[in-house]
């Protein structure tokens, strides 16, 4: 793959142009069954085992609408602050493609179930950016094709293709933004932040697996540039195959620099579909169609219109969980966090963990210090997500409690946590097994202090002379003698008492 592009320096792009974005996200719902038939909606089954006359588009078969999918669509719409249609229909989008059994996609056209909403997304510096939502509509997924005989399993050069229709008819919600303007140089970041926010939202709603790697969340990025003095949008390209959050950012940035170079050289942007290549970070054109596709939409006669009652919509509004940004706002207020602290907390993916630790008795500051400052590093070292660490908020709260009561030092506490992470059981069991109790028995400590003072008479003399700062050396010796299991503060008190 060696495509050579003239790319413009990013700073120069921003100096000359304003980017305009449009993001289309397809979400596979994780309902039990498909959109229009009772076949199981499961990822990764044996080919053509989750199929029936309806999702194979067999003659005579008819669609029946999954009520749960409609419910999910409305909940997504509400969470995106959309209006919910009083009455809407499905439409047929007609075009031929072998992965689409009926050669039309049952979708929604001019009557989406949800429209006119917005999503406030948090940027890296903690500021909010409002992305306006044009619509969220219901449709069905296509089957999957496997291209055989080509050099690399890609479509070009393949001798024939093999089709598996297990995915055909899986419920999809397509969420389309209005043109996103005013991002300036932050366009790539806004794109990523939007998809991230959407992913978190859909996860909170529990409507989708939102796995970009498995295709249950897919993003198409429309990018165009407007010259600084222009009043109309430029020609846009639509980049598909953007399969990770990082790719969203890279694809937008790449298109901006590619388009800017063309425009500055006096060229024209071709309105086309482009594909993002993860390995090169570049986009390449899809097949250009001789003529613009005419999808010949018309209302789907095999399905009845949907007219969600306002009571139902309100009932569904009542089922919305606390949405991610509401929760963030709330914890910031409750825990008195600065914007930077909140950002660190969110970026660490630790909001829920810290909250649970606070619920288990810790203060927000203590909980944050453990999860954000310490355990994030542990997770990184172990190559897992923070939430995947083998320790619970309750266990962290226990450890924090032991430190506060003086039974553990911070150093010992970290060792206890390590033990829990290593699978040695509850904190108490780790303490027991590793013998990590702080030595708080004064007689044992007094003995160690006396021994240390005897071993270093010159230091002892200095302390007796009132040079209290010299006590540090004796504290160190005592700590060493007790293998760190002494409370340093108490040791210091005993030394000073002994020498006065």
């Amino acid at each position, binding site marked *: 793959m060696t495509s050579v592009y003239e790319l413009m320096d990013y700073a120069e792009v921003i100096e000359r142009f304003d980017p305009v974005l449009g993001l289309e996200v397809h979400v596979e719902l994780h309902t039990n069954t498909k959109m229009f038939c009772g076949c199981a909606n499961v990822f990764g089954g044996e*080919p053509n085992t989750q199929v*029936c006359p309806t999702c194979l588009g067999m003659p005579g078969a008819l669609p029946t609408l999954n009520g749960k999918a409609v419910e999910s669509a409305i909940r997504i719409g509400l969470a995106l602050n959309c209006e919910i249609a009083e009455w809407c229909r499905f439409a047929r989008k007609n075009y031929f493609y072998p992965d689409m059994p009926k050669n039309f996609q049952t979708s929604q056209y001019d009557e989406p179930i949800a429209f006119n909403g917005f999503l406030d997304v948090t940027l890296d510096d903690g500021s909010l950016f409002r992305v306006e939502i044009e619509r969220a509509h219901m449709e069905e997924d296509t089957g999957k094709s496997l291209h055989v005989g080509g050099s690399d399993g890609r*479509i070009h050069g*393949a001798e024939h293709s093999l*089709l598996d229709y297990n995915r055909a008819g899986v419920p999809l919600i397509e969420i389309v933004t209005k043109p996103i303007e005013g991002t300036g140089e932050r366009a790539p970041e806004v794109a990523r932040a939007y998809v991230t926010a959407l992913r978190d939202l859909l996860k909170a709603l529990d409507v989708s697996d939102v796995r970009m790697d498995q295709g249950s969340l897919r993003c198409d990025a429309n990018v165009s540039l407007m010259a600084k003095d222009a009043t109309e949008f430029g020609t846009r390209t639509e980049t598909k195959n953007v399969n990770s959050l990082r790719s969203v950012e890279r694809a937008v940035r790449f298109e901006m620099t590619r388009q800017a170079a063309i425009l500055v050289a006096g060229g024209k942007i071709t309105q086309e579909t482009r594909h993002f290549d993860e390995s090169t970070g570049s986009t390449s054109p899809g097949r250009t169609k001789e003529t613009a596709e005419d999808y010949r939409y018309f*209302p789907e006669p095999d399905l009845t219109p949907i007219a969600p009652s306002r009571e139902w919509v309100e009932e569904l509004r009542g089922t919305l969980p606390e949405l991610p940004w509401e929760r963030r706002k709330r914890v910031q207020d409750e825990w008195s966090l600065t914007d930077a602290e909140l950002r660190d907390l969110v970026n660490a993916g630790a909001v829920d963990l810290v909250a649970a630790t606070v619920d288990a008795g810790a203060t927000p500051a203590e909980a944050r210090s453990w999860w954000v400052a310490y355990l994030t590093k542990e997770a990184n070292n172990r190559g897992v997500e923070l939430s995947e660490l083998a320790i619970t908020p309750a266990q962290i709260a226990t450890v924090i409690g032991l430190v506060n009561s003086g039974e553990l030092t911070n150093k010992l506490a970290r060792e206890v946590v390590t033990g829990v992470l290593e699978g040695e059981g509850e904190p108490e069991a780790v303490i027991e097994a590793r013998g990590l109790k702080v030595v708080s028995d004064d007689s044992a400590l007094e003995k160690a202090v006396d021994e240390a003072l005897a071993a270093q008479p010159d230091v002892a003399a200095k302390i007796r002379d009132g040079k209290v700062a010299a006590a540090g050396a004796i504290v160190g010796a005592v700590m060493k003698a007790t293998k760190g299991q002494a409370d340093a503060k108490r040791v210091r008190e005993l030394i000073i008492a002994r020498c006065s």
Partner: protein
Amino acid sequence: MPSISRDEVAHLARLARLAVTDDELDLFAGQLDVILQSVATVGDIATADIPPTSHAVPLTNVFREDVVRPSLGQQQALAGAPAAEDGRFRVPRILGEEA
């Protein structure tokens, strides 16, 4: 009203995936023209204030419960296929965009 040209018929045939012959182009151009002129009379009474009817019966909100029903077996699914391979439908190479 419209006069359907051979080119337009060819375009429609392409959209509809019909590899029509030259003779058919001539035949259909003439026939479509006559038919379309005749049916265009619907415009005479279809004024802006009339709502369109897409469904004969005014039903709404017909939903299915989200409960799995048995699927066809792979063998049954593929039984009528012109060609199959590895449990999949085998089709000629697909030109076009990458999916």
